């Protein structure tokens, strides 16, 4: 009964989304305030209905209702409760429902937070969100309904959740990622609403910025979580595989990063309006394209999701309508927008444009690399993959360029850069960075390569020049007066930039060191054998068996010592999951700030010996630590006073007047 109720809620949500997509739009074009106000009501109602539908599905998992086909294929009565909840989005149908739920959530958030927006604009934004909801909910209802029953012949127990997904990382990774993906629908909706209304001025950019920033923070964390999960769960010690599913999330991230920067130019200097509008459309389009690539089965991936050409056709049609439609609208309306600012080669606006160029190239590189199997097939060369050699080769120079821009970024003003003598120290810092960039890795690891030196020196330079800039802005004269705190004259968005840029440098340092200095050993070990990796000795003590409700495991014990001193005892597992009878490698990791020790247990080789994989991974944590800084930076922007000021009436009046003028001119 409850699954039918869920189905009913979903159908109702579809109807409400349809109203949300049509009524406010109609109201906005006819000037009917009542119809426009329907946007808010329907957005809230849609959220409540989808949340209820989602709750019904969660309930079906918790009570082990295996008459529901989706529950039967993705859950099992042995599964612990928290995995039953995460199993809700462990398969195709449920993860789409989560997508729709999050989309409705963003729509409702706009309805609540957007009370101060001009009515017409808010109505159009909510209508665009509603139309996206219509597309997604109908996709669920027509091709991927999670509420369908298996009657009368239902299984007594379920097929279980894919063991790879029975993990804490996978409980939180998809919701974070989807928050990011779907969050870019808000800037997208703002652009479309602006294009429909024919008003797309720089105020639009100011409204979109916080939304784009939140979405970007979630996406950053989501991607980092996915990478961290792959690292400890797949047992290969790798943290990025350039897999189509990973690339699908990286493309919107790269485009979104470009969007954050171009929004700044549009907001502060009313420049590159057309490009920013296009970028907002592209960022969300890449989110949709990612969904298509993952769900349609045109590309095969190590991430095992159910795939189906019929679903692929539906998403492709949806993609053509949404993306094609918006790009057509863009083509029809964009020439009305005019940016009238001048650019100096060295100015903050051109610096941000350079950043955009780098990010755009990166997007194209990932897009071509990901679609290469499809393109080569379409042009008759067979189905081929290009793989990491291609991506690594092309990403390195882009990362170096990005770091170079970042090192100078805090010093470059809007409009025109004025060289002042204080900036001379940047050369000194660059010099120090190169010296340290050679010496530190050379002392720590014993040798250097030019890639490591380049990446590490540039990262250091970014760090030093950013910190110097920060210190220059803190007024130390007040130290010791009053409460003893220095007076700080910093905006939150400035601090956000500092944090995000340092975070990027930290990640790059981690990537450079891990890629070059990791030690990987695959050996056959008898109990009592020892092995050296780096400065560490690994002694294989033997194996024993263990049992949990959802799997059995063989657990190895490996003692790690350094110079005769016990560091840790690692217990890698080889698990056999009861229901699917599939075996999984569960690596044991001793995590540290400067290095991870990583041990995975392979197969028994028969005579009491085991295949054992031992990795020494220096600075690998820095990769994820950097992403945390980056997202914290994004979170700080939200607290910026300027966004709160937006709510004050005077600004809104000013904004409306500005729109009014644009309308008259346009």
């Amino acid at each position, binding site marked *: 009964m409850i699954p039918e109720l869920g189905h009913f809620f979903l159908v109702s949500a579809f109807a409400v989304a349809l109203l949300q997509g049509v009524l406010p739009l109609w109201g906005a074009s006819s000037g009917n305030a009542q119809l426009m106000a329907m946007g808010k009501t329907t957005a809230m109602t849609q959220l409540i209905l989808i949340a209820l539908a989602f709750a019904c599905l969660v309930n079906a998992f918790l009570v082990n209702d295996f008459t529901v086909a989706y529950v039967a294929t993705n859950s099992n009565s042995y599964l612990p409760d928290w995995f039953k909840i995460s199993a809700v989005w462990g398969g195709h149908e449920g993860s789409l429902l989560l997508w729709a739920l999050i989309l409705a959530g963003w729509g409702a958030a706009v309805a609540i937070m957007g009370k101060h927006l001009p009515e017409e604009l808010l109505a159009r934004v909510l209508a665009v969100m509603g139309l996206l909801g219509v597309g997604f909910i109908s996709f669920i209802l027509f091709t991927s309904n999670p509420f369908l029953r298996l009657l009368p012949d239902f299984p007594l127990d379920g097929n279980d959740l894919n063991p790879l997904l029975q993990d804490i990382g996978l409980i939180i990774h998809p919701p974070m990622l989807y928050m990011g993906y779907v969050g870019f629908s808000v800037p997208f909706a703002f652009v479309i609403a602006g294009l429909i209304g024919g008003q797309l001025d720089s105020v639009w950019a100011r409204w979109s910025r916080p939304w784009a920033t939140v979405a970007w923070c979630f996406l950053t964390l989501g991607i980092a979580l996915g990478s961290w999960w792959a690292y400890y769960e797949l*047992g*290969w*010690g*790798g943290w990025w*595989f*350039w*897999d189509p599913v990973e690339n699908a999330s990286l493309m919107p991230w790269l485009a979104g990063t470009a969007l954050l920067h171009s929004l700044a130019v549009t907001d502060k200097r009313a420049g590159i309006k*057309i490009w920013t509008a*296009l970028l907002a*459309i*592209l960022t969300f*389009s890449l989110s949709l394209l990612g969904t*298509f690539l993952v769900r*349609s089965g*045109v*590309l*095969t*991936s*190590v991430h095992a999701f159910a795939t189906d*050409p019929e679903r*692929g*056709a539906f998403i*492709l049609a949806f*993609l*053509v309508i949404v*993306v*094609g439609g918006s*790009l*057509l609208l*863009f*083509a*029809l309306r*964009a*020439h009305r927008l005019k940016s009238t600012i001048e650019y100096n080669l060295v100015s903050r606006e051109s610096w941000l444009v350079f950043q955009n160029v780098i990010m755009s190239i990166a997007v194209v590189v990932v897009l071509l690399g990901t*679609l*290469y*199997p*499809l*393109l*080569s*097939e*379409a042009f*008759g*060369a*067979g*189905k*081929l*993959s*290009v*793989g*990491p*050699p291609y991506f690594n080769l092309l990403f390195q120079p882009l990362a170096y360029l990005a770091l170079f821009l970042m090192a100078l970024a805090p010093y470059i003003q809007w409009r025109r850069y004025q060289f002042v003598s204080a900036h001379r120290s940047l050369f000194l810092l660059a010099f120090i960075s190169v010296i340290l960039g050679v010496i530190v890795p050379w002392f720590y690891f014993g040798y250097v390569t030019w890639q490591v030196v380049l990446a590490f020196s540039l990262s250091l330079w970014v760090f030093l020049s950013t910190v110097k800039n920060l210190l220059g802005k803190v007024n130390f004269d007040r130290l010791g007066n009053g409460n003893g705190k220095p007076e700080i004259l910093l905006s939150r968005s400035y601090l956000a930039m500092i944090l995000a840029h340092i975070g990027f440098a930290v990640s790059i340092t981690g990537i450079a060191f891990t890629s070059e200095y990791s030690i*990987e050993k*695959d050996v056959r070990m008898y109990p009592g054998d020892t092995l050296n990796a780096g400065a560490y000795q690994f002694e294989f003590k033997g194996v024993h068996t263990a049992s949990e409700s959802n799997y059995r495991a063989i657990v190895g014990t490996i003692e790690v010592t350094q110079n005769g001193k016990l560091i840790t005892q690692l217990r890698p597992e080889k698990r056999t999951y009861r229901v699917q009878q599939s075996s999984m490698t569960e690596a044991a990791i001793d995590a540290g700030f400067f290095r991870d020790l990583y041990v*995975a247990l*392979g*197969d028994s080789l028969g005579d009491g010996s085991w*295949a054992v*994989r031992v*990795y020494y991974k220096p600075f690998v944590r820095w990769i994820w630590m950097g992403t945390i800084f980056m997202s914290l930076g994004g979170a700080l922007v939200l607290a910026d006073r300027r966004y709160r000021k937006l709510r004050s009436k005077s600004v809104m009046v000013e904004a409306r007047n500005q729109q009014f003028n644009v309308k008259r001119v346009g």
Partner: protein
Amino acid sequence: MNRTFFIYLAPFILFIALAGVLFFALGKDPKLLPSAKLGKPFPDFQLPGLHQPEKTLSKTELVGEVVLINIWATWCVSCLVEHPVLSKLARSGVIIYGLNYKDVRSAAIVFLENHGNPYREVFFDANGSLGLDLGVYGAPETYFLDREGQIRYRHIGVITTDIWQNKLKSIYQGLIQENQE
């Protein structure tokens, strides 16, 4: 209609072209066009084994029997699709050598542990030197060698059961029968 309009139309046109490719990919089973490089001898090489890094393997391993040489890597997702088909072929007696191409040794070993090993021997070509000599486009590719070690056929892309049954099987059996006469 001014000139700028057509510039702004460019993203739309590019997208429609992309959608066309996606649509093409969607409706289609991988139908693969082979480009045959017949009759050339397989290049000489010296490569370590995947499982025994200390052992050096060379072309002499391949000569004397009809063999398939499959170029694969763990980063190549299409190879994962092909893998069960290769396993089936290996079980039916087809001799397949693997050329692990531009890969990480440990990852490749885990891959074969998890998915089974259809290869009689795997050559480990970390920097793609043999791949360069062969003119490999990408992975997967499969070369058919006769008893003299000559390349008699080259298949680019995934081998599916269909492709094997309808096309490659007869090529393989032709090579088997050839020298028995």
